[in-house]
């Protein structure tokens, strides 16, 4: 049937989201409207009151149609625009061919197949985007210090720390540290802001499979002193990760055999979690569960991801199988371990969960590409569907310093990528960059949000 009537078949296909979600959005907007009115003074209050009276006027029971025939005045036109609320500085890396304002034309093919070094850009509300580090030296792994006063990043494999001024501009490097080998992951600020840690793998990179290499967790102080704070051996096929404790006095790190905690005082490492024992005679070592992406909350819990590979056919490591990623939580004070959620996939290697700055919430991407926020106090996990793009797919997510917003890289076919900030209260999300292919290959490790 090829008639207009055939479309009616689709009616049942459009399933409404939970009504309560719409009620929550309405409530949030009403609260914001009241707050905006209070902030913008008497004139704005008058507009709100007039609007309220207007909707209760008898006989006016339908919204006015828009369009040239019946222009409808709105408060947007009759009142001044609300002032831009600053919410810190978002630093991110991008292909330098995007130009100083990230508006230079760059094609998909150029960005995807002919990568060029990244530079560092800055996005602040109410200000044009600008390139603040223009070395074309391949900066990556950005992280603003806990106090918002410094920015650490990798320049190639060199760890660089620069001060940030009030306008968000970086100054001359305060630290340039050369790790013994390129860090296995991104350097991490200690919560006390006094050092930057990283993991290095030593030994011969050509070590045969199923043998071990030594690994080290290092801490680089602000005067450039680089010290080893933990040493371990790990299988060559495992990429170790680490995380700082909230008091900066200990770290956790991963090996293929588990999650380990060690204090900076040099005590023996303590095994916090180990994978379930498998049948070594039936499995390749790589098929065992293994941990990655630890992150230690300010409240004391550690979240990490356990990767499990399950072959569909017994004893056939080259057959088909299922990769499962499960978020685990362990409280080192009680040794209690809980599984939070399983994934059928994780797009980005090393992507795990992210604690909110106060440690009360955990954000991560579900197998459906949706952002989830888990509240530790209530135990509830909420799926955030950023409006007005309910069908967008996100790959990685990070937190704003106020803990009220998330930042994510979003992809749209034919447009490219953009940074999107998503309030966790369900308010509309906000694009923080133009759509550009210059953000191709950039993960959330390439984005950091400072409070200044």
């Amino acid at each position, binding site marked *: *049937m*090829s*008639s*207009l*009537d*055939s*479309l*009616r*078949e*689709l*009616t*049942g*296909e*459009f*399933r*409404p*989201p939970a*009504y309560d979600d*719409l*009620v929550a*959005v*309405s409530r949030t*907007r*009403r609260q914001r409207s009241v707050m905006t009115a209070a902030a913008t003074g008497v004139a704005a209050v008058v507009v709100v009151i007039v609007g309220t009276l207007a*909707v*209760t006027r*008898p006989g006016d*029971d*339908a*919204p*006015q*149609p*828009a*369009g040239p*025939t*019946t222009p409808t005045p709105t408060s947007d036109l009759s009142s001044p625009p609300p002032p831009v609320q600053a919410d810190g500085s978002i630093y991110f890396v991008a292909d330098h061919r995007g130009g100083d304002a990230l508006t230079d034309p760059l094609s998909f093919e150029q960005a995807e197949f002919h990568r060029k070094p990244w530079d560092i850009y800055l996005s602040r509300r109410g200000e044009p985007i600008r390139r603040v580090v223009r070395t074309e030296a391949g900066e990556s792994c950005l992280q603003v210090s806990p106090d918002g006063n410094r920015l650490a990043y990798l320049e190639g494999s060199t760890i660089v720390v620069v001060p940030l001024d009030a306008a968000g501009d970086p100054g001359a490097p305060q630290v340039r540290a050369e790790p013994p080998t390129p860090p296995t992951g991104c350097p991490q600020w200690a919560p006390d802001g006094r050092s930057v840690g990283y993991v290095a793998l030593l030994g011969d990179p050509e070590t045969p499979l199923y043998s071990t290499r030594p690994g080290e967790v290092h801490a680089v102080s602000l005067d450039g002193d680089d010290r080893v704070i933990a040493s371990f051996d790990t299988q060559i096929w495992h990429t170790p990760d680490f995380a700082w404790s909230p008091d900066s006095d200990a770290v956790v790190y991963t090996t293929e055999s588990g999650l380990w905690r060690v204090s900076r005082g040099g005590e023996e490492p303590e095994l916090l979690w180990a994978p379930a024992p498998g049948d070594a005679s039936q499995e390749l070592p790589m098929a065992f569960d293994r941990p990655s992406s630890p992150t230690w909350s300010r409240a004391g819990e550690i979240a990490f991801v356990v990767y499990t590979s399950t072959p569909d056919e017994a004893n056939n490591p080259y057959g088909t199988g299922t990769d499962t990623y499960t978020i685990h939580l362990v409280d080192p004070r009680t040794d209690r371990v809980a599984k939070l959620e399983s994934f059928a996939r994780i797009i980005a290697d090393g992507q795990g969960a992210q604690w909110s700055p106060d440690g009360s919430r955990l954000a991560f991407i*579900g197998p*459906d*590409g*949706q952002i989830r926020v888990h509240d530790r106090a209530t135990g509830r996990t909420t799926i955030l569907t950023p*409006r*007005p*793009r*309910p*069908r*967008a*797919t996100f790959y990685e997510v990070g937190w704003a310093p106020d803990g009220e917003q998330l930042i994510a890289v979003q*992809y*749209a*076919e*034919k*447009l490219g990528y953009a940074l999107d900030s998503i309030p966790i209260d369900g308010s509309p999300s906000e694009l923080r960059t133009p*759509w550009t292919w210059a953000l191709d290959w950039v993960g959330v490790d390439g984005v950091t949000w400072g409070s200044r």
Partner: protein
Amino acid sequence: MSRSAALQELYEASYGRLVLQMFAICGDVAEAEDAVQEAFVKAIGQGRAFDQVRKPEAWLRTAALNHQRNSWRHAKVVRRFATTVPGPQSSPEVGPDHVAVVQALAGLDRDQRTVVVLRYLADLSTTEIAHELGVPEGTVKSRLSRGRERLAPMLEEREETDHV
């Protein structure tokens, strides 16, 4: 029945219909769902005032149409492309026939398309359409006439029993 329960009942009963109508007008499922959800958010925000609305579904449809027209141009482009990204929600089963119909509708200008959809999918009379869109009934009839000419093959099945 409480106000909230009544609106929720209307939401569950009319959501699919309204999304379908918006989809036929804009050709984008996500945009259509956005518009309808925005309309309901507005209705919820009206509180007690919404009780005075004589034709709630018509009110919601007009609000959704307004939202579609007023959508930020850039966001609209974004949504159009975003629907092609493998999405987290299950997509409705839009078959080739449905796509063909929506593509044919897209050949009309927006005003004609809106009138055709309200007439043939929302089953409104020309008087009702004129009221909802705030245009003279003669304008509705002329838009409908031009739209019907261009969509004649699709509307054949209705022609026999339907006269404006």
